């Protein structure tokens, strides 16, 4: 009786990993669409939106993605099968022009990064499923000098040159 229960327990243990939903993506093919705020008057904070469409070689449909955004992990929203979106925003000054690398993890990777962060490291040693590079060309806050100012300066310059030559002639 005891041996049969032992055999049953062993059988269950052997089958268990197959029953668990591993939910990893092998060989992801990623197409990404990135948006960053271009004009400061259209948004009071700079917003980054990263949309990705992921196709896995192993046909994984229940993929859960997490993204590492500027140091902290956010869950990616799902907007359709294989379509995910990550968005974050911050003040214009805190998101200057440049390239931002966004690392995407599945559940295993997410748990690994959380464990690393709890033990003190910053979690950059964990390999992501894929990375998306976001190129931000800066948020335009207006021209350096207003054209009205330039026009006024030119007008004053012309007047000054005329005044100088006139006083030179009169002297």
């Amino acid at each position, binding site marked *: 009786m005891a041996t049969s229960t032992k055999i049953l327990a062993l059988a269950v243990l052997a089958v268990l990993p197959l029953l668990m939903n591993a939910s990893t993506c092998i060989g992801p093919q990623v197409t990404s*669409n990135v*948006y960053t*705020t*271009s*004009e*400061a*008057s*259209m*948004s*009071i*904070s700079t*917003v980054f*939106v990263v*949309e990705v469409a992921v196709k896995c070689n192993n046909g994984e449909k229940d993929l*859960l993605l997490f993204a590492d955004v500027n140091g902290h992990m*956010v*869950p990616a*929203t*799902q*907007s*359709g099968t294989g*379509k995910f*979106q990550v*968005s*974050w*925003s911050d003040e214009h000054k805190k998101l200057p022009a440049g390239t931002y690398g966004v690392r995407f993890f599945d559940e295993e990777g997410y748990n690994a990064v959380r464990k690393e962060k709890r033990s003190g490291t910053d979690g950059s040693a964990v390999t992501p499923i894929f990375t998306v590079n976001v190129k931000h060309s800066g948020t335009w806050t207006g*021209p350096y000098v*207003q*054209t009205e100012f*330039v*026009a006024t300066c*030119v007008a004053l310059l*012309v007047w000054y040159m005329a005044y100088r030559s006139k006083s030179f002639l009169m002297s």
Partner: protein
Amino acid sequence: MKSLFLLVVAFVAVRSDNDDNAARLLASKSILNQFIVEGKELTVEYSIYNVGSSQAYNVELSDSSFPEEDFQRVSGSLNVKWDRLAVGANVSHAVILKPLRPGYANFTAAQVKYYPTEESQAVQVGYTTAPGEAGIVGLKDYERRFSPHIVDWATFAIMTLPSIGFPFLLWYRSKSKYDVKHKKN
């Protein structure tokens, strides 16, 4: 009397047990624009915060207040799902749209549906805050006020050229004649 007191205590305990271990989501929707201009980007940001004591499952945010014929989608999706929201989680979602017509627009709330516990069968429906009514400025009016008007200034400069250039030419011609005479002497 004592049994009545115990009954009341038991009732209160059961009632408070209902609200325990359930997720509660607070959601806000805000427009990040200083000006909403026809043909320029409109930035909408949603924030969802789990203030309950359990994870929220199958959180779905859907916004149907931007009809396709009035707002063109630039980036982001108006119907998104989160699988799970942990206790105390604060997530944000952004959508970029482009208004196609000027006028007044009423920005109403978006809908948030979620399951407060893992076993609950009934979906909980909530709404985000609504930004309210705002005006969409026409592109011409916005540019009249804010664009650098470079072409206008260049045209103005060309138009002032005759009234400044003509006397200058006269003076320069007579000056060069005088200089030549002076050199001859």
